[in-house]
């Protein structure tokens, strides 16, 4: 039984994020729990941003992955406690960096009202970077540019 629950977790956890496919839903911290209830695999999923359009796609992909592994599946959306970038695992952070996305600086939720955080360039490691736009190609990212290697890059915003 424990082995089955682990197998369900592994199947759900292997689902990649549709917009940031270098990390899976477990590394991103949005897959909160998978447990077996009367033979049904129940996966708890937390959305990243309120209006993240990927939420439904992620839920469907997890459900499909559980079906493929031979489980009847149900998804529960969990709003509290709210997801924070602090839940991205160390492996997830490293994969984001390798993919060219600067991982969130530590201390989500401590964002001050004015002034931008110091962000490290994922390519050359320089701290000399500037923000181009608070909002990027997806709700969870901002646009930055490295002043040392001049490479533009995405920054995974801290929330």
């Amino acid at each position: 039984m424990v082995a089955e629950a682990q197998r369900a977790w592994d199947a759900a956890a292997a689902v990649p994020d549709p917009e940031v496919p270098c990390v899976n839903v477990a590394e991103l911290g949005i897959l909160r729990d998978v447990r077996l209830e009367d033979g049904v695999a129940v996966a708890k999923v937390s959305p990243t941003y309120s209006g993240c359009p990927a939420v439904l796609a992620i839920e469907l992909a997890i459900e499909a992955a559980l079906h493929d592994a031979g489980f009847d599946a149900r998804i529960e959306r969990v709003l509290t406690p709210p997801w924070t970038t602090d839940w991205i695992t160390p492996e997830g952070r490293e994969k984001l960096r390798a993919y060219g996305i600067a991982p969130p600086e530590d201390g989500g939720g401590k964002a001050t009202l004015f002034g931008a955080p110091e962000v490290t360039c994922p390519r050359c490691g320089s701290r000399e970077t500037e923000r181009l736009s608070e909002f990027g190609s997806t709700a969870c990212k901002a646009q930055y540019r490295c002043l040392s290697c001049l490479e533009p890059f995405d920054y995974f915003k801290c929330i």
Partner: protein
Amino acid sequence: MAVYQAILELADDHLVLGHRISEWCGHAPMLEEDLAMPNMALDLIGSARTLYDHAGKLEGKGQSEDDLAYLRGEREYRNCLLVERPNEDFAHTMLRSLYFAAFMRPFWLKTLEMGTDETVRGVAGKAEKEMAYHIRHAGEWVIRLGDGTEESAARMRDAVAALHIYTDELFESSPAAAEAEAGGVLPVRAEMRAAWDEVIGQVFAEALLEVPEVPYPQTGGRHGLHGEGLGHMLAEMQSVYRAHPGATW
């Protein structure tokens, strides 16, 4: 029933402002803003969805989030007047967002502190962080335009003259909201005044703008009395759902 109505008011504020901001998509003056606008709209519409869903369940008559958003007419919408004001130019759009986010951030923070409704607290936990981004983004624009060229400063002053009269309504509680406040579900709206004044004062000082006196504040949205623009906006927003009731894809 009062809590249902109070949450509906909140949801309407978020959907109407979210839809207004989304009208910039494809029209913003530069690519960064064309990305920023739908991002901010999505934050608001995302909060609205959860609030509508929750309101429908509290009411218990089987109304879905879509039913509540798409099948109520203008007089049934309970949003405050500020959020339905037309986009006009960037000065109006950014000032409107600043006014709203500067109210919602302390409102959600207080909800997290004292609120008794788990779903509303769930919305609050995400939204207070998103509202901090909105304050910063809109605030930076207000400063840039207010302390900018002669033309941009004049437009910013026009926006203040046009929109400040709608801000008092943010701090008013309808009878339904007052009941939800007494029940500990939502914080007392009037108590957000100090936090709002501080943010607006700080931004206006940097933007070289004056906070105007408002002898005759404009209100009525909580009673379904709206400006002409809301009906036009809803007609467009609701047309597909009304033409194809119950359609899914």
